């Protein structure tokens, strides 16, 4: 049925491969994907482990919709303890791995321990092998995929790391289908620390649902009435680059290390600029939209650049040359590092150099040096070795802490909180650090009708946004379908063969969110870490809509207090026993 009921567990220390029953009680309460993955991480890891040690686990989770025709369901959730932040970490990746894992008969893959020699895990339905991958060690993501696709079939799902993951770089990512990544929080370093170069999966089994005719009828209606609509089609016609003009108009586009929120070169890196390059569209399995923009310029190809890359690697570095951004993007994808953190780090290095605090030899807009950065950082060569440690480390060592744009050690993504106060709260409270995917309240605020420059109602707005994303990424559905909770309820009820109400989904979302929080509390995180860089509180933006504004510290504090209160946490941000009881945890 919608769950296979089977978890595949691989121990790289012992070489043991075992199958066990999926915890049904947890599946009922946490659904799958993000929620179920972090629940397993929380329960299976003891506190205080070194995320790069054999005690960490890499847990890959599908959801009840995976492998079915439910639109926009073809994504995989990954969870572990983060090497970059020490927090709970969950990531998401598109491409075919999730569906292949489900067709192979597994809801979840748990990878434990560390291999002694570089290994490649190969899954073919019931046949699971840990193969030697020494011949692949040192290869980039593109080379690795090409090689494995050749050997094991191009229709397989392949996850691999590049040099960055092998070297345990804190911003290392995992790549699939060349151009898709699970990128944040050092997820690639977790895989690298296990000496796991790649995972290849191919499945031939059936995925079934209790009411096939009912589901087909429901989905057919939804695809045409709810997916292929104005609200969602922008992601097909333009992709995420449509956000460049939005951010610029709202004054939140990170420019020159967040010194401003309006970039004079925005029109050179926006959706129109991307469209001129004539992208070919690419979708994940079962996606009726298709956000991927495949672009080739000379020797460089990307599926992208995505908005985050255009912002952090473009405007944030003072670069308006779309070809240079594409080249930087492609290098990051190949060596295997997160473009958000990479762009943020390079922007920081540029400001440090220009201010004369520390000469990293690079200034805003210096394309020649900038293009060397992905390899230097990913391979930890020259100054790349230090840069690869992230802005928190760099600021501690050299200064510039006021403008080290990170929360909990995770570099901030492409929305300036001074122009969207709810995003400030979202960044401060996401359990994996400065993240825009944990909750996206800006959509109805600075990008919608709600006043960005007040704290009124923002705590509730942010909590609702976080719960929305949480349940969506646990069922698993892609961000880009603006699906309502009611429709999620309709779909999950049909696929599970029983009524699952919106209230049940909301409760599960809150439960899942609290698991992430409890993990961090257990690791010793304090409410002081629910904060933002000084620049946000002290440096006014210069241009556009939020010109002259900061997010005032006292306002932020009040917003955070209300957030804790509404969440039923104590004044230290710790979930109370009453709240945990209410959530049946």
């Amino acid at each position, binding site marked *: 049925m919608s769950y296979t009921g089977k978890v595949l567990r691989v121990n790289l220390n012992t070489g043991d491969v075992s199958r066990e029953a999926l915890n049904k009680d947890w599946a009922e309460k946490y659904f799958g994907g993000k929620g179920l993955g972090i629940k397993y991480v929380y329960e299976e890891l003891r506190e205080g482990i070194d995320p790069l040690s054999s005690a960490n686990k890499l847990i890959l989770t599908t959801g009840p919709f995976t492998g079915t025709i439910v639109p926009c369901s073809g994504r995989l959730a990954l969870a572990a303890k983060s090497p970059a932040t020490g927090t709970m970490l969950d990531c998401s990746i598109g491409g075919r791995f999730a569906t292949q894992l489900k067709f192979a008969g597994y809801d979840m893959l748990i990878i434990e321990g560390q291999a002694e020699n570089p290994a490649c895990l190969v899954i073919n339905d019931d046949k699971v092998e840990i193969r030697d991958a020494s011949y692949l060690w040192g290869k980039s993501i593109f080379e690795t995929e090409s090689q494995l696709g050749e050997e094991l079939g191009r229709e397989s799902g392949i996850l691999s790391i590049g040099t960055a993951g092998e070297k345990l770089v804190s911003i290392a990512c995992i790549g699939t289908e060349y151009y898709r990544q699970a990128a944040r929080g050092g997820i690639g370093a977790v895989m690298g620390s296990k000496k796991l170069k790649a995972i290849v999966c191919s499945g031939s089994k*059936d995925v079934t649902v209790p009411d096939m005719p009912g589901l087909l009828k429901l989905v057919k209606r939804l695809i045409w009435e709810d997916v292929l609509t104005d609200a969602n089609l922008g992601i097909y016609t333009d992709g995420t680059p449509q956000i460049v003009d939005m951010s610029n108009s709202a004054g939140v586009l990170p420019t020159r290390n967040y010194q401003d929120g309006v970039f004079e070169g925005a029109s050179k890196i926006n959706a129109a600029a991307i469209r001129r390059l004539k992208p070919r569209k*690419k979708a994940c399995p*079962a996606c009726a939209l298709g956000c991927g923009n495949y672009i080739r310029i000379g020797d460089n190809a990307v599926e992208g650049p995505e908005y985050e890359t255009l912002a952090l690697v473009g405007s944030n570095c003072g670069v308006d040359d779309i070809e240079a951004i594409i080249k930087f993007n492609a290098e990051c994808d190949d060596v295997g590092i997160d473009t958000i953190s990479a762009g943020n780090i390079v922007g920081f290095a540029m400001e440090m150099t220009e201010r004369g605090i520390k000469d990293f030899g690079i200034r805003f807009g210096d394309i020649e040096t900038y293009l060397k950065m992905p390899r230097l950082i990913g391979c930890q060569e020259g100054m790349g070795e230090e840069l690869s440690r992230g802005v928190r480390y760099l600021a501690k060592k050299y200064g510039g802490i006021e403008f080290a744009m990170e929360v909990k050690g995770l570099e901030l993504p492409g929305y300036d909180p001074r122009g969207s106060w709810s995003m400030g709260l979202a960044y401060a409270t996401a359990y994996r650090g400065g993240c825009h995917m944990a909750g996206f309240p800006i959509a109805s605020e600075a990008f919608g009708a709600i006043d960005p420059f007040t704290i009124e109602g923002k705590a509730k707005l942010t909590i609702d946004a976080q719960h929305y994303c949480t349940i969506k990424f646990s069922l698993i559905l892609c961000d880009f379908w603006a699906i309502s909770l009611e429709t999620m309820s309709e779909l999950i009820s049909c696929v599970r063969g029983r009524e699952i109400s919106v209230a049940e989904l909301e409760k599960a979302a809150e439960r899942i969110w609290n698991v992430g929080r409890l993990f961090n509390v257990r690791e010793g995180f304090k409410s002081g870490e629910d904060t933002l860089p000084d620049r946000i509180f002290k440096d006014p933006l210069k241009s556009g809509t939020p010109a002259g504004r900061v997010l005032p510290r006292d306002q932020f504090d009040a917003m955070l207090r209300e957030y804790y209160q509404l969440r039923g946490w104590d004044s230290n941000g710790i979930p109370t026993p009453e709240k945990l009881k209410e959530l049946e945890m």
Partner: protein
Amino acid sequence: MKLVLDTERCTGCGICELVCSAVKEGVFNPRMACLKIHSGYRKGDLIVRGEFCDLCLECVEACPTGAITSENGSLSIDQESCSECGLCVDACPYGIINLSSSGKLLICDRCGGSPECVGWCPHEAIKKEESAT
């Protein structure tokens, strides 16, 4: 009736494969679909290709019991006459004939004139071309 893939419109979502196996066999399994969509990167380049039944009739020739016949521009299957020998599966040059686990022969029969894959493709990438025969 020929089915043709517009490779510029196809995003590789595979909804067509899922609906085919769903309608024919009541399961989601792209390997059981009577069409194949390849959409992926080879050496970094996007390659898109679709394989549909093009009425080469190798299966009709291979079938020892006459369970597969061709008429009016599509194949039809007499499940009763099928001996589950699997010769048609081997004969199909595209590998899009399958014997399901329940012993049912899954062959593209154009869904009786209104192919599901055509109807479900979100970007109208699968086109029907009425052939002369």
